[in-house]
């Protein structure tokens, strides 16, 4: 994949549930190894768009879509591409931390172990690399056999990032990952994401405009299922091209 190929892209994507179109003709490209933030008021379709890239919407009743969704150069609905394989490529972190009721180690190695990896040396290596990537290694390296449920909320969320990293995905989808965290844990999480962006493409849904301003290289603004504007974060925040964008970021609605 050359640098010019977008890591994630959609073309004329229409998607929704039952008879309601949630996304209307979205065409978006996400550059590789950068943080792209999706912003917009509640119900504008940010999460639905995010979940199109790893097909998590498919599990919801009545989901339909038209148009194209690509990860790299490959269509996510490519029949030769198993759902599970796609999800090894595109990791996801949810709004609320959702550690499994197992040890820290088992949590992180969940992906590799369901993929059939059994070599202890490889697993140890993956464990350390993932926890280091999520900046959690120093905090838990002496207690990786303890239950993951004993970690604090911020640690749990970084554990979820480590868990997603364990499958070596090229892309991470994050759905408001800091909304359940306190400011200190949020700061730590943002630092983690910023450091990860050197290697992984990150698509981040956030309600927090300051957060987008702080860490996102590019920002996309969605409103009522339409992509209003997409561009460099600094440019979008200081000099928006669309009036709607300006009104949203200056807090006139949303």
């Amino acid at each position, binding site marked *: 994949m050359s640098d010019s190929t977008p890591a994630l892209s959609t073309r004329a994507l229409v998607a929704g549930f039952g008879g309601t179109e949630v996304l209307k003709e979205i065409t978006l490209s996400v550059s590789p190894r950068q943080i792209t933030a999706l912003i917009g008021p509640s119900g504008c379709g940010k999460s639905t768009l995010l979940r199109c890239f*790893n097909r*998590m919407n498919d*599990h919801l009743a009545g989901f339909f879509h038209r148009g194209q969704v690509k990860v790299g150069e490959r269509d996510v609905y490519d029949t030769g591409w198993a*759902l*599970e*394989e*796609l*999800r*090894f490529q595109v*990791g*996801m972190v*949810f709004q*609320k*931390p*959702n550690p*499994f*009721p*197992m040890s820290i180690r088992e949590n992180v190695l*969940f*992906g590799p172990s*369901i*993929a059939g990896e059994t070599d202890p040396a490889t697993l140890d290596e993956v464990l350390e690399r993932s926890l280091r990537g999520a900046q959690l290694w120093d905090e838990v390296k002496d207690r990786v056999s303890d*239950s993951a*449920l*004993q*970690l*604090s*909320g911020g*640690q*749990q969320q970084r554990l*979820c990032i480590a*868990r*997603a990293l364990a*499958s070596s995905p090229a892309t991470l989808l994050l759905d408001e990952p800091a909304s*359940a965290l306190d400011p200190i844990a949020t700061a730590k999480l943002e630092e983690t994401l910023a450091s990860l962006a050197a290697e992984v493409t990150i698509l981040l849904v956030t309600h927090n405009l300051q957060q987008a301003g702080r860490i996102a290289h590019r920002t996309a603004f969605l409103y009522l299922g339409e992509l209003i504007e997409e561009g460099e974060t600094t440019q979008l925040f200081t000099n928006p091209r669309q009036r709607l964008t300006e009104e949203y970021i200056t807090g006139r609605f949303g």
Partner: protein
Amino acid sequence: MSGLRSWLADGVAQRWLSAAAIMLSLGMIGGLVVVVVVISGAAFWPRPLVEFTLADGNRVLGEETEREPDTATAGRIRTRIKVANREVLGADFRWVPDTEVVARRLPADAWLLERREYGAFHGFPVALSVETGSVAAGDPAFPSTLGTAMARARALLAEERQLLRRVDRLHAPVAALERKITAAERRGRDVTTLRERRDAVAAHEQAELGGVLEKLPAIRERLSRESLLMRTTDGVEKSVPISAIVRAMPVNALSTSQKLSVYASRWSEFLFDEPRESNTEGGIFPAIFGTALMVMLMTIVVVPLGVVTAVYLNEYARDTFFTRAVRLALANLAGVPSIVFGAFGLAFFVWTLGGALDRLFFADVLPNPTFGTGGILWASLTLALLTVPVVVVATEEGLQAVPQAVRDGARALGATRWQTLRRVVLPYASPGILTGAILAVARGAGEVAPLMLTGVVKLAPALAVDLQPPFLHLDRKFMHLGFHIYDVGFQSPNVEAAKAMVYVTVLVLLVLVVALNLTAIALRTRLRRRLRSAAV
């Protein structure tokens, strides 16, 4: 009116009402436990032998068991005395009105003999006749000589039992060949070679058997030679074979520590020995073992069955008329009287399945049934059916408690539906599953009615697990504590004598159920601790 309404709104009445309801329930449970513990705790304590001299000159020697107002004559108190000596007096108990008692004393030389047959014997020892000669009761060597004689008799009895078991083992190959011959003859096949083999094996058996059998008369002769001559308080003399004595003691002369050792030895006999005297004496080990094994087999069957059902209903099936009908049927199943399950178990498991198994695999012993009759397997399966609704409901609750976020998390990591279920959802729901197992055990361990139709018997000393291959004999009938209580307490020819046994058996059953429950609860607590989240 408004006063009443405000009083009700205040909640005072409701609070009192619920408190009263709880007190009533606790009181009933506590009362039951106290009665059972007190009576069974005292059941095995050696009680003094009291000698009453009556107005008509007769004497009675026995244990005072209870006192109550005489219903026949107002104002008179009577005492129930356990007189024992069944073969002499005809009955174990006798009522003596206080007005007829002239004298009451505790004779220090009165002895209590617990025997293998005819119950206890109360009386005064006269003389002991052993291989080395005769020892009078007054002789200082009498107690020790009696002790060694009893030990000798126990050893001889054990030897006899071993010899008889050897006879059985020696005969087994011949018996197996005979069965084959019968089966082959029925099918009209040629049995000459089988007969020849049978004869050869039988000849070999005879040669071995001769050596074994000639030892038996000598043992029996030695056993019959030693006896203890006793005199009842009425002066009747009675010779008791030493081999028939389980325990002998001068009860009134025992020190507290000696009484304690008798108490302990009676408890250990009760817990670890087989019953005697149509279950009214001896131990209940086969019943404890049968109950525990049956409950375990039931759990092994019911938990997977219930969990699979709940997983299908909750994870795979869509909410349709069919699944709702299944849920309703399951809920109703929990209300079906257990005897109906027993009848179903008898008809389906025993007759249909067991009969088919017999025709397929045990045709050579027919018409004697192997699986076509009640047995521990069929009883466990019947109880598993009875308890499956409990497990399904509890497991469904456990599955519904698994957060969607956790399921999504596993799916987003590339887990298939099955991997998500097996690695995340089921571990998460395991406390619910264990709750179901606990409830099933509690219900199954106390159930008696269906077992009476599917394999419980009053006496089955052959345990379902032993050292004979295949080690676990699922076709065997078994004893059960609940049925034992019914049988000993209400069906025995000597209900009054067995009363203490009933209480102690109830205690053991309660302890067993509580122990099984506690094990499961401890397991669940450990799992819950692992699942409890410290954060958010």
